[in-house]
Every structure is written in C-alpha cells, then in structure tokens.
C-alpha cells in the first residue's frame, strides 16, 4: 500500500533526505499522508528520529526491498 503522494529521496545522503522532507511539509496539510522512498541506509533510523522529534507519524517503514519506503502522516496542528 502506497499513498497518492510520493517523494523520491533516492541518491540523497545525510542530511538531505530530512531537509527535503522538511521542505515538503510546508506543502502538505495536517493529517495528509505521503510515501518517501530513500536509498540512504542512514534514513532507516533517521526517519524514525525525525518523526519522533517533529511529531509527524511514521505509519509504515519497509526496508525489505532495495530502497527504504516510509509512509508518513503529517501531524495535525500546523507547526511549519
């Protein structure tokens, strides 16, 4: 299951995946879900920490395929 909105972070290295996610957040409404696809191995732990710190919800994280696939839901209250 993937969401309608997808963001391709493949090829990007730390800290650019989370920098890109932060920029994307400005375009989304609270509660909106999107799928992020990344190739940076650090993204696996980093996306969890990023969600913990920012309050967005990590709905699903799939590391079984070649790329990491994360489904994230933007937190409700507007903070960005």
């Amino acid at each position: 299951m993937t969401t309608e909105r997808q963001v391709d972070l493949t090829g990007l290295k730390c800290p650019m995946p989370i920098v890109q996610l932060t920029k994307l957040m400005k375009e989304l409404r609270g509660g909106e879900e999107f799928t992020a696809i990344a190739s940076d191995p650090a993204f696996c732990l980093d996306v969890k920490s990023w969600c913990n710190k920012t309050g967005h919800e990590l709905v699903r994280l799939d590391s079984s395929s070649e790329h990491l696939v994360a489904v994230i839901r933007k937190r409700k209250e507007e903070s960005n």
Partner: protein
Amino acid sequence: MNTADRMTSPDVVASLERRIEELEKKSKNTPDANAISMIVFSGELDKLLAAFVIATGAAACGMKVSMFFTFWATAALKKSGPQAKGKSIVERMFGWMLPGGFDKRKLSKMDMCGIGRRMMAREMSKKNVASLPELIEAAKELGIEINICEMSMSLMGIRAEELIDYPDMEYCGVARFVEQSSSSNTTLFI
C-alpha cells in the same frame, strides 16, 4: 467562607500572583530543549561540513539553530574575489593568507597540499554527498541563524562585504552567544 470568596480574597490573589510571577521567571530561564547553539571555530572543510550537516539536520528536525562563527571559521565564510579597499598592510596579509571561496578550504587531515581536498570533492560528488555551498543554501532555507564574531573580523581585517551573502547573518560579540547558548539545551564547539 465558601470557595469563591476564598479565591477572590485580596491575600490569596496577591499570593497567587506572586507564585505565578516566580513560575514565569523560572520558565523563562529554563533552557529550550528544542534549541541548539553552535560555536564554529575551525575553518577547515571537514569541520565546516560537520557543522553544517548537524545544523541543517537539527533544523530539519524542527529545532531552532544558531551558529556563532569565530576565528578561522569567520575567515572561512569569505567569498572569493578581491580584498576590500582601505585595509592596513597587516590586514592585507591576513587576506592573502586566508583566501575566500569554499574551494580554498583545506582538510584538517590528509589535505596533502590540495590533493586530498580534490579527491574528497570528487568522491563527494560521485556519492552525491551535499557540498558546503549546498548545505549553506539548505541552512538559508531552514532559517538557521548565523552570528559572526565582530572581534574576529576586526582582528583579521575582514569586511562585511567580503563575506558570503546570507539572510540571517548578524555581527555580534560573546554576550549574544552566551545568551543563546544558555537558553538552549545543547551547545557544540566545532
């Protein structure tokens, strides 16, 4: 006396006001867990990369980031180009010894007269690691504040117009850093 009367009696109100005031004062002095301040002292490429990776990463995590540039790091923010006019001989010499431009930044280890630097640049581009100018662009977009030590600038004869263009750049002294550092939970020295 019923509860409503007790709440509005002048003594109780005065005591509550005092307690609120004290709490407000206390909360004002509590460091913000969501703020990070950094002293950037080194002017070498590897250390500047580390500083900007941490700064942009923290800002992306929603933290308020302020960077305080002093000594060699101040000189590292110079853009390439001719020196400003009206400098003394010694200030000009500083300018020659500390050339502007991010391509001039050395590595703190394995620079090997520029060979290491070029190898590093090639590997970074091959492996799509963000370069220093790219990280500084991201820092701008994320609203990271850069404070420049005015004393370093005057000591090394660096003029404001010789530094890179950055929107949230301010020139200040150590008091500004102390205030920001004491109101943030984390302070790093790089």
